[in-house]
């Protein structure tokens, strides 16, 4: 059975809660596992995600139809690849309306691509409510709830909300652990490839790092270990989610075949 491809859609209602970081980590996860994802950065203003993967990324302005075509019509490529799509909070509603209007999920599935939404709620009840609505409206997509430890403690109002309660028994979920604030500046260096950093050969021989990663060569052992531990936990959590998604995909294929 051929390896399943995924269209990973990373979204959040709010800005600055780790969405681009998660999209980057997912892209690096795929690179580490030998996949070469197509990356779409829908923030045509900041282009932050594209800055980390200049050769794999396409910047999309969702207000422009030709750009919408660049993003969604890639499904029709002869050999569709795994995709990572970072949906800027500014285009949150527009992106998902467009996705529903063009029946993206059905088209993706018909081409062997499993659409998956990774949603990061903020601390407020509204972001949980919008996540609940998104899960309801996009029933034909897998939905992963991502709790970002960096967002902080969730308030009482949110915990009491029906939207929060609706996610209590949601199975596909993962935590994005918090990185020591001391190291966050280091990983924001666009020259740093997190997947290269985690490759064993690089870990053992930092002096041989490619020139694009020279910034890491100056890391203290403590900083390097701290980032590596954090990445290990992130990738472990991601692996659990991706394994679950693959299992789901296989069982769906078996069901389809038996019909």
């Amino acid at each position: 059975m051929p390896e399943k491809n995924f269209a990973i859609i990373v979204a959040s209602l709010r800005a600055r809660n780790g969405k681009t970081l998660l999209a980057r980590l997912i892209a690096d996860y795929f690179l580490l596992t030998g996949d070469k994802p197509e990356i779409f950065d829908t923030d045509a203003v900041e282009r932050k995600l594209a800055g980390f993967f200049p050769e794999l990324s396409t910047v999309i302005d969702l207000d422009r139809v030709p750009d919408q075509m660049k993003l969604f019509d890639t499904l029709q490529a002869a050999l569709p690849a795994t995709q990572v799509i970072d949906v800027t909070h500014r285009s949150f509603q527009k992106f998902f309306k467009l996705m529903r209007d063009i029946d993206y999920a059905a088209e993706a599935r018909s081409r062997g691509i499993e659409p998956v939404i990774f949603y990061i709620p903020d601390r407020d009840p509204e972001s949980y409510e919008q996540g609940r609505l998104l899960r309801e409206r996009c029933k034909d997509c897998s939905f992963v709830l991502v709790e970002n430890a960096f967002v902080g403690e969730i308030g009482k109002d949110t915990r009491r909300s029906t939207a929060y309660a609706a996610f209590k028994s949601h199975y596909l979920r993962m935590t994005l652990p918090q990185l020591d604030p001391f190291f966050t500046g280091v990983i924001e260096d666009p020259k740093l490839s997190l997947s290269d950093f985690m490759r064993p050969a690089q870990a053992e021989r930092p002096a041989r790092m490619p020139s694009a990663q020279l910034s890491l060569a100056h890391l203290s052992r403590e900083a390097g270990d701290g980032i590596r531990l954090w990445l290990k936990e992130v990738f472990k959590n991601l692996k659990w989610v991706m394994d679950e998604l693959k299992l789901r995909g296989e069982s769906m294929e078996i069901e389809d075949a038996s019909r």
Partner: protein
Amino acid sequence: MKPAVLIVGADKGGVGKTTITRTLIDYLASKNTLVRAFDAEFPRGALKRFHPNVTEVIDITSVSDQMKMLDTLLTSEVKVSLIDIRAGLLSRTLKAFTDVGFFDAVREGEVTFGMFHILGPSVASLEEIADVTPYAAGKNYFAVKNFINETSFFEWDPAVYDSYFKKTKGSVELNIPKLHEMAYEQVDLSGVPFSTFIKNRTAQGHIANSSLVLRGYVRTWLNLVYQEYDRIGLLDRLTDSEAD
């Protein structure tokens, strides 16, 4: 079901008559209602390019072509005839239909008649309403505001429009939303019905390679157009006449 004739026309050109006719053919097909279409864009036939199997290009000013349409109404197995009238010929066609006694047959309940009058933004369109009113009274008269060309109807004074529009008993207003121009152009290039474009098929029935995004825009737009036809109860208006 008794025979029905639906005219799509305007005296002004470029207001989207053929587009509306194409949506009507798709809509009626989606309701399992067979349609034959007459394209009065003689001799070019823009409609025939999209719906070649059901369309015949005619010269509506020619008596033999008028016979081809009207004399076959009672005998044809296809009960709904759509006529896409060439720009500038609406009033003249209605007069010719009067002269041959077509509206007498409508009054006597032998034939159902409906007119989709496509309005442009200019004041001239309002004057057109006055011109066609004598033929439309008491019948299925649909004043179509077609926003496909991003028309704003800015030249109209609402009070003046109402004074024209309300004179026509039983008239119904239809609003056709705008379709994104890139999507419209792509369907135009494909030369297939809107419904075929949505299904990603070529005119020969093979799988096409049309943009998923543009197909999505066409699907959403066509659904909105269908909703307008549902709102006015178009199919009921055609079939209810059976019980008359």
